[in-house]
């Protein structure tokens, strides 16, 4: 979980990055807690990498950046206390060992000490046996491990990771994420991970900052960002596909009754203050599909017609017409066992405890 201290290790206030006259990133306030892993999550082009480069003092910005409570007035000195791993490994045409030692050599560390530190870092990433291999003979996954080893060898107080797995194939990515998670846990190094991949963010981060159009839109513990996105755009980005306009009918017995189209839906979530027409958010994974009318504890069950079946990897995305559009995800096996076909009538259910409610219009 997030280790907190009195002062965040890094604070950004009114951080603005300009391209020409255009603000491409504007973050009013962002605190990086020491020892934690913050994922900066957003779609391509949202400004994630630009934000990371600004936080690492690698490009000009306006605003305030405070490291351990003091303004970053000497970017070079600050950069010698952090490390950055980019999407591509960016290794020099030298041996793996020399690459792993590079940050230490640039800091003037004596050869014997840096060799030992680099060897330890390579060992942590499981590539000690590659130490003498020329960097240009490494696979993509091995090269990225060297890049990460080079970063952790300097003992950074903050480790910035800019989509470090994006260029890797799935098995390599999964193995590296698992190893990196282990290293980060063991070293308790404060980490900022930029990614567009929700699974990566959930695997590594304890807090998630969602950035859209260069603005920080939500900062919360990882689970809450996915279960309770703060506005419809974030909901759409984090995979909450069912965002339904609703009207509050009544609030009683800890249940809010909403009308969606001509159906009544009960949820335990309270509507936003003063909002009679909230948006109802239901994750497709939370919708259960059955052939027979449901006899479960789920408060919400609707007969619906399957409009479309879309196999996506190991899942099947089902688009239903229940009098309102509803998307559900089931496994390929469930879809096969239920013999689902387009045009079939099925029952869709979800618990009252699962949806959450958003205000119809995001506050400016």
């Amino acid at each position, binding site marked *: 979980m997030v280790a907190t201290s009195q002062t965040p290790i890094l604070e950004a206030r009114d951080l603005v990055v300009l391209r020409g006259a255009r603000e491409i990133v504007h973050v009013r306030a962002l605190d990086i807690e020491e020892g934690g892993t913050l994922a900066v999550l957003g779609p391509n082009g949202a400004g994630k990498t630009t934000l990371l*480069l600004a936080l*690492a003092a*690698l490009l000009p910005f306006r605003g305030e950046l405070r490291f351990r409570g003091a303004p970053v007035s000497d970017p*070079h000195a600050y*950069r*010698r206390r*952090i*490390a*950055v791993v*980019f999407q*591509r490994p*960016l290794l*020099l*045409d*030298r*041996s793996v060992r*020399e690459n792993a030692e*590079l*940050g230490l050599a*640039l*800091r003037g560390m004596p050869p014997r000490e840096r060799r030992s530190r680099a060897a330890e870092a390579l060992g942590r990433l499981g590539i000690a046996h590659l130490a*003498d291999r*020329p960097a240009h003979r490494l696979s993509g996954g091995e090269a990225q491990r060297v890049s990460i080893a*080079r970063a952790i060898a*300097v003992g950074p107080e903050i480790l*910035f990771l800019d989509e470090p797995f994006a260029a890797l194939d799935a098995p390599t990515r999964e193995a590296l994420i698992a190893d990196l998670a282990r290293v980060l846990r063991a070293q308790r190094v404060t980490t900022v991970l930029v990614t567009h991949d929700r699974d990566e963010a959930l695997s590594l981060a304890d807090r998630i900052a969602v950035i859209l159009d260069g603005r920080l839109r939500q900062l919360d513990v990882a689970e809450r960002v996915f279960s309770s996105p703060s506005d419809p755009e974030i909901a759409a980005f984090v995979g909450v596909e069912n965002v339904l306009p609703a009207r509050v009918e009544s609030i009683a017995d800890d249940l809010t009754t909403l009308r969606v189209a001509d159906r009544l839906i009960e949820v335990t979530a309270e509507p936003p203050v003063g909002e009679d027409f909230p948006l109802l958010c239901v994750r497709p994974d939370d919708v259960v599909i059955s052939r027979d009318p449901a006899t479960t504890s789920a408060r919400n069950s609707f007969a619906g017609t399957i409009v479309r079946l879309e196999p996506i990897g190991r899942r099947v995305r089902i688009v239903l017409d229940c009098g309102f559009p509803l998307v559900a995800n089931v496994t390929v096996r469930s879809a096969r066992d239920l013999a689902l076909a387009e045009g079939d009538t099925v029952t869709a259910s979800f618990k009252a405890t699962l949806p959450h409610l958003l205000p119809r219009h995001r506050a400016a």
Partner: protein
Amino acid sequence: MEPILEGITGAIARLVALDADVLAAASASLAVSGTATALSILVGIPLGAVLGLARFRGRTLALSVVNTGMGLPPVAVGLFVATLVWRSGLLGGLDWYCTRPAIVMAQFALAAPTVIGLTAVALQSVDPMLRTQLTSLGATPLQSAWLLVRESRLLLISAALAGFGAVISEIGASLMVGCNVKGDTRLLTTAIVLEASKGEFGSAYALVFILLTLIFAVSAVTTWAQQRPRPL
């Protein structure tokens, strides 16, 4: 074909016999062009690195000047250097007219733009993110530049070779400022012109083959240095 065959056999004979004039011209060519190239590398790589990596007002103009310098006619350079080292010239006090230093100066003026220009191009072709990565690792601008120069070493060897090639085979400038003094400033190229002007084509061809052999030898060594397995 006869003069060419005569030239080949003549070249072999003069080399085997260690002909003093040929050896003097060959060693003068190597010494003068080698010195000019070395000076071009010393000055050209740092300047090329600045032009390739730094961003400053007037950079494009400076690059245009360098690119123009890559195509300078040797006779124009020779004329300019001759004016400088002439007895009444700006550097007349050095008494360099008709000496090897004057040829070195002229050849430096010819080789340096090539080394500067190709170095700038080599460094501009390095992945810009690598520079950001080095900065993030705590490199100072000087450390970054040095590492990027090392990363570009294959292209920089080519730049040096191009600089050497530009001066070892030039004639106009060397003739104008060196005066073709036998045993001193007579280079292989100026000796070839002299022999050809006397109608001694066999002798001229012999010198041509020796010059080509010399260029091939230097190219072979630098190519070997460029292509050998990289040291770790």
